[in-house]
């Protein structure tokens, strides 16, 4: 089975460790997880390497999540990006607040992962997203 390369971009060390643990700590799947904690590093990595999936935190130092997402899509339009957020609970989309940028984010993202997540939740969203990819 071909190794699935996953990139995780988050400010918090523990989140990166948890993603790695949840995806690579179990024997039945072949994921390789690369981590970085700034948007710039992430963009650099995307340019230099090929990934099958990206986890992106919406709150990164410097650029805001929506902007990073747009840039990722510019480089590699077909890459699925799952956005992560700790802000909202129960999927409260405050549409009135950010207007277009939220809609844009929703359009560009392949999925939405709410923090904190369980092992099951993250593995499930990875397999669902990749299933679509494979399907396509």
């Amino acid at each position, binding site marked *: 089975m071909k190794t699935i390369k996953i990139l995780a971009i988050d400010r*918090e060390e*523990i*989140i990166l*460790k*948890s993603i790695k*643990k*949840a995806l690579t*700590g*179990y024997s039945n799947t072949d994921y390789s997880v690369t981590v970085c904690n700034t948007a710039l590093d992430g963009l650099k990595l995307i340019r230099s390497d090929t990934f099958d999936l990206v986890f992106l935190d919406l*709150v990164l130092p410097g650029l805001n999540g929506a902007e990073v997402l747009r840039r990722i899509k510019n480089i590699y339009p077909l890459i*699925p990006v799952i956005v992560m957020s*700790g*802000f*909202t*609970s*129960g*999927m*409260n*989309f*405050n*549409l*009135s607040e950010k207007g277009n940028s939220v*809609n844009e984010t*929703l*359009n560009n993202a*392949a*999925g*939405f992962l*709410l*923090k*904190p*997540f*369980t*092992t*099951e939740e993250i593995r*499930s*969203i990875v397999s*669902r*997203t990749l*299933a*679509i990819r494979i*399907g396509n």
Partner: protein
Amino acid sequence: MSLFEKLKYISISSRISILLGIIILLTMGAFSTFSLLKQKEDAIISISNNTGQLSQTIEKILRVSMLKNQRDDISLAVNNIVGSEDIKSIKILNHDGSIKFSSIHSEINKNISQSRQLCVSCHIKNDKKIKANIKNFKHFRIDNKNNLIYNSLPIYNSASCYNGVCHSPEQLAFNKREKSETNSASLSPHDSSQTILGFIEIEVSIKKIISDLEKTRTQLIFLTILFALIASIITYFSIRYLIGKPVKNLVDGTLRVARGDFNHEIPPGKAELGVLSESFNKMQKQLMTTQSQLIESEKLASVGKLADEVANEINNPLTGIIIYCESLMNEADITDVKRSDYEIVRQEALKIRGSIRNILSLTRQKKPDFIVTDISSIIRHAISVIEKFSNFRNIQIITGLPKTLPKVSADPDLIEQVFLNLLLNSSESMPAGGIVNIISSYLSDEKEIEIAFTDTGKEIPSGVLQKILDPTNNSNLEDFEKIGISLTVCKDIIEMHKGKIIINSSGIGTSVIIKLPL
């Protein structure tokens, strides 16, 4: 405080009253002075006329005696006339200025000086020559200092004078006697060349009239002052009542508002000030409302900010705890007792997750902005947003959303949130795929819009449904935490719109019925 600053604080009422008092004093004062002067003038003219007429009458009467040369009679008459009608003195003088008859005995045979006004009106000073035009021979003059009027009537020469027409025997006898005794040429009848033989001068006192006028003037002044005072006082109190007090209330009110105290209504003023005080009170109420609104939204903003920070600080470490716990559980042997210990830790961590999400969802609610909305279009928009998500890969969404549904008064963003939540919940409950059915309709009897939302997903345990009704219920339902919390939020939103939400779940799926009033 300097005098100037003190002056600033003199109230409106005082200023207007003082001004009014001054105006009254000045106008009435001017008026009375003018009026009195006119009266005096008129009085003097009237007296002068009377005096003139009196002189003429006296002259006519005395002429007879003068023609008869009855000197005693003339003296008697002169003495008797004085004393009546304020006539102070009468004198008869000849053209040379010699006083022949007078009520003042000492004056007789004395001369008046030729520089006197009487002489100078016709003659050039100290000369017998007559001036160019003698039209303005003053018959009377006024001595203002002593309150006297002098009337000088010229006695004109006539034929009967210089001819000595009266041939009375007494006259002839008298003439004879006089001629022999004094041998004076001046006793002859008058010279025909003389125009004016002499003058009758009457001195009239106008003291009484003047003093009467003075009395009237004093009375008027007193009345003026009294009137000015009364008018001022009345004005002062009226203005204070009508304007001063309401203005003071307004000033106090504005000072209070400046201090931040919006709570006291000011008592209403009169007339236009009543309108002003009313609008002031309204403004106060508005300020109070605005202030509390600002405080509310500031609170919300700060709570929101706090919530964001808390979320971040807690959610990230919590992720670590959950994931590593699960990893430990995975690595431990199935028989290992440690597994159950790890499970306990994991459960507690998930409880924290649930609590945090609950609290955050409560603080996140924005204030609804009700506008006229079409429910069908909102649902369609929500679907368009969410169906791209990978969760919806195997899910079929069937809709029955008529375009002609009556509109409701709702906050479109909040309503969209409800539907997004419902759609997500459905997708989570059918990871392998399923059907979501959304139908909206209008119930004319109850005047409500009904939206029926059904899916073919996993059953939601009754415990979760209970939790939706009572969010503080702490039962352990980890997988459905998310759904439970988001459904509580939906319930809150629908209730804010004065609607109802009914959730049923069974083995074949879940149905959510939402009713919204028009």
